[in-house]
């Protein structure tokens, strides 16, 4: 009987691991513990041993490292082939990918080649024993995700295959380092080039920051020109991080360079309907209100008691954002304790 193994494909860009992969390691550790199995990271790239080592901070038992100059950048063919071979050979119980462009390219290919089960965009993962059609299955991966436009939460199982896979979006799982990392143990796997790997060659790579998905965010903390400087705007970012919200802003904040354009809320930006919307240092011009007035709860912070934003807000705080935001952060943190 094979050891139950949980693998996490570690996505890397220019020698840096993607956050989502580290988040998945944290989750993977729990899954492995439940199965009394091992957590392994799969690191593919060039000069990426440090990533393999770093993965131990997140609870890995064993890292598989495939390091070769030709693997520097992600390419579908070689990465796919390597993973196919590894999965076929070692038959892990669970393999996790980030639901990134790369993860979405890779996971279905590996799953299809190795005839594994796969669910995309899971929001929760669990290991459980399941009775299904009168049969008992051990260590099944519950692949949980919203379905039918978010109206139901579906739990998907893939009982008739050994390898079960899932992709998870960035920011869904919590990332935390383990207290006592295991000793570093890296299994280096040689890369044997194959002519099909070079069917597609990379001419040039140009990366832009990924687009944010403000529309789906349940909490949005938006800042405006009232913050005055990019430096001050960091308070808004801090608040967003503290309460787990997305950062957004008014057009004036975008024009002033406080935040990138894709985070502009309003008539010519994104229309959002979060559960909670903070409007900080935003006057609430009609063009801005058009994009956020349907938020379930709106909290406005503004020095001007006559600012139009107060007309649509549920809670209005008249005051200097620089004073109010730190208080908010503090209050929130003490609540969590």
């Amino acid at each position, binding site marked *: 009987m094979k050891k139950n193994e949980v693998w996490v494909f570690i996505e890397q860009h220019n020698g840096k691991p993607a956050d989502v992969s580290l988040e998945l390691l944290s989750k993977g550790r729990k899954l492995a513990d439940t199965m009394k199995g091992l957590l392994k990271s799969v690191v593919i790239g060039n000069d990426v041993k440090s990533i393999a080592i770093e993965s131990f901070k997140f609870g890995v038992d064993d890292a598989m490292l495939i390091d070769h100059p030709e693997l520097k950048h992600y390419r579908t063919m070689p990465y796919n082939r390597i993973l196919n071979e590894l999965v076929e050979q070692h038959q892990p119980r669970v393999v996790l990918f980030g639901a990134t462009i790369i993860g979405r390219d890779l996971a279905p290919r590996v799953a299809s080649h190795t005839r594994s089960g796969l669910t995309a965009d899971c929001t929760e993962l669990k290991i459980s024993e399941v009775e299904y059609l009168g049969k008992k299955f051990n260590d099944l991966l519950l692949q949980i995700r919203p379905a039918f436009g978010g109206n139901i939460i579906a739990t998907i199982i893939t009982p008739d295959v050994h390898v079960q896979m899932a992709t998870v979006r960035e920011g869904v799982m919590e990332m935390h380092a383990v207290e006592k990392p295991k000793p570093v143990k890296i299994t280096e796997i040689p890369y044997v080039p194959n002519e099909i790997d070079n069917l597609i060659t990379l001419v040039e790579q140009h990366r832009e920051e990924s687009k944010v998905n403000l529309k789906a965010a349940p909490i949005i903390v938006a800042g405006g*020109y009232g913050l005055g400087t990019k430096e001050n705007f960091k308070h808004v970012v801090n608040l967003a991080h503290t309460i787990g919200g997305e950062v957004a802003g008014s057009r*004036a904040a975008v*024009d*002033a360079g406080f935040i990138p354009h894709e985070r502009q809320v309003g008539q010519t930006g994104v229309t959002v309907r979060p559960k909670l919307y903070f409007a900080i240092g935003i*006057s609430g*011009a*009609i*063009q801005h209100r058009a994009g956020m007035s349907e938020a379930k709860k709106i909290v406005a912070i503004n020095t001007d008691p*006559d600012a*139009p934003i107060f007309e649509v807000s549920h809670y209005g705080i008249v005051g200097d954002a620089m004073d109010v935001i730190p208080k908010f952060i503090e209050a929130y943190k003490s609540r969590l304790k």
Partner: protein
Amino acid sequence: MPNFFTENPDIQFHFNKFELKEIVSLTEDNYEQSKQFNYAPINYEDAMENYRKVLEVVGDIAGNYIAPRAADVDNDGASFNDGKVAYATGTQKNLQELSQADLMGMILPRTYGGLNFPFSIYMMAVEMVSRADASLMNIFGLQDIGDTIRKFGNEDQRMEFLPRISSGEHTGAMALTEPDAGSDLQAVKLTAYQNEQGKWFLRGVKRFITNGNAQVLLVLARSEAGTKDGRGLSMFVCYGDETVVVRRIEHKLGIHGSPTCELQFNDTPAQLVGSRKFGLIKYVLDLMYRARMGVSSQALGISQAAYEEAVKYAKERKQFGKAIYNIPVISNMLIDMKVMLESNRSLLYSTAKCVDEKEKLEDLIEKLKAEGKSFAEENNRLKQVTKIANLLTPMTKFVLAESSNKITYDALQIHGGTGYMKEFRVERLARDARITNIYEGTSQMQIVAASGGVINDVMGEYFDEKEKREYKTGLTKLANHLKEIRQLFLDCLKYVLDKKETSFQDVAAKDLVELYSYLYIGYLLLDEAEKEPRKVFIANRYIVTALANARKNVEAIKNELFSDLLHAEKILV
């Protein structure tokens, strides 16, 4: 070597027939000014000759220097980098040349370095500059900001700001609009507050400010904390110093040479102009007369340019073995354009004269007051003229701006596919025309502004007089048409008033204002036709078309086309 003044027979016609005797005499303090300034005119003929000379210069600069740069200005546009606005190279040259020719203070008094011209003459200059480059008008035509400071500011303010505006060292901007205060300026929020020494400061945001990067800004601000309407607003003048941040300039359809700025006032030191609380209800309303006229001239200049392009192209372009100029539908369109253009010009200069008269009477009354003399008679006249100016300025802006859109679109159509291409001027003209019925009050707001005068039939007596007159035999038919339009108008007016329903009145206002404009313009053209044979054709086509249109307006009103407003929810699904 095109000269936009000497080579435009219709402008010449209007200049030659201008009856500005009284206005010029008032402008020149009955030619007293010539004692103080050796270059001031000594009598009416001298003044007109002077105006003509200057307009020739404007026509030359416009035709030979500004117009050839317009395509580059449109292409380059004003730019915004590191918080600083820069004009296109062509715009910079244009402004330099206009300043060198001493044209930046045409309507400002000589004491402040101006030319002390009547407003009507200035409007001719604005028309020609706009024909050359509509976006330049937005800087050249902001001279009336200086004029507003002259009218309502104190002597210190005049001395401080006007000479630099006249010399072209400073340009101006008029900062009224805010994100939540567009057509409804009563909603202006930008705050003005005083420190212990009584000094004023401005704080807040303005947007869509033409030439907002200017050195002198005229700002409408809320000086009375806690107020919500127009009575809490005052007018301020300030410098575009480092406390005024240009946050962005807009990317827009047309007038690329003119920067449209979003401004942030951060405790900007300012001076109150005139008295508190009169900012909107007096000064802005007053500024509007001249500003709306400026836009009307701009619209007319663009129309003139489009018409020229269309005629030229139609003569050059051959299809089916002949110049398209000779294809009846095309020559018909061209004639329509020409009729619209010339009737618009008649309206513009008639209104300009009326605004001039109002301005000069106001100045005269101020003077008489200061001298302790009686001014009852002047005051009565002023009241009458103001009523008419109140009707004619918005009507003019409405008619000319809408016409400009129509003329430029038709000119583009005459160019066929070519017209849609950037290589030809006409697509720029169509884009530039599009702003004229939006800023300084949209066409809808002009209708609102004009409708009061129309509903009160303020030109009633004037029309009565005209109806009593005998016209030359050939024109009797047209005079009768106008009588018929008058009858149609009066019937409709009664119909609308009898309804006693304000929403119905609001919607019918457009048809009523149009009816009134046919009448007024119709009579202007009829008078002109008596003087100049060529104008008979213009009057004929205008009035015959007007009668047909008038019947359409009547049908719309009397068939209660608008009763479906009550069911808007069902229709606008």
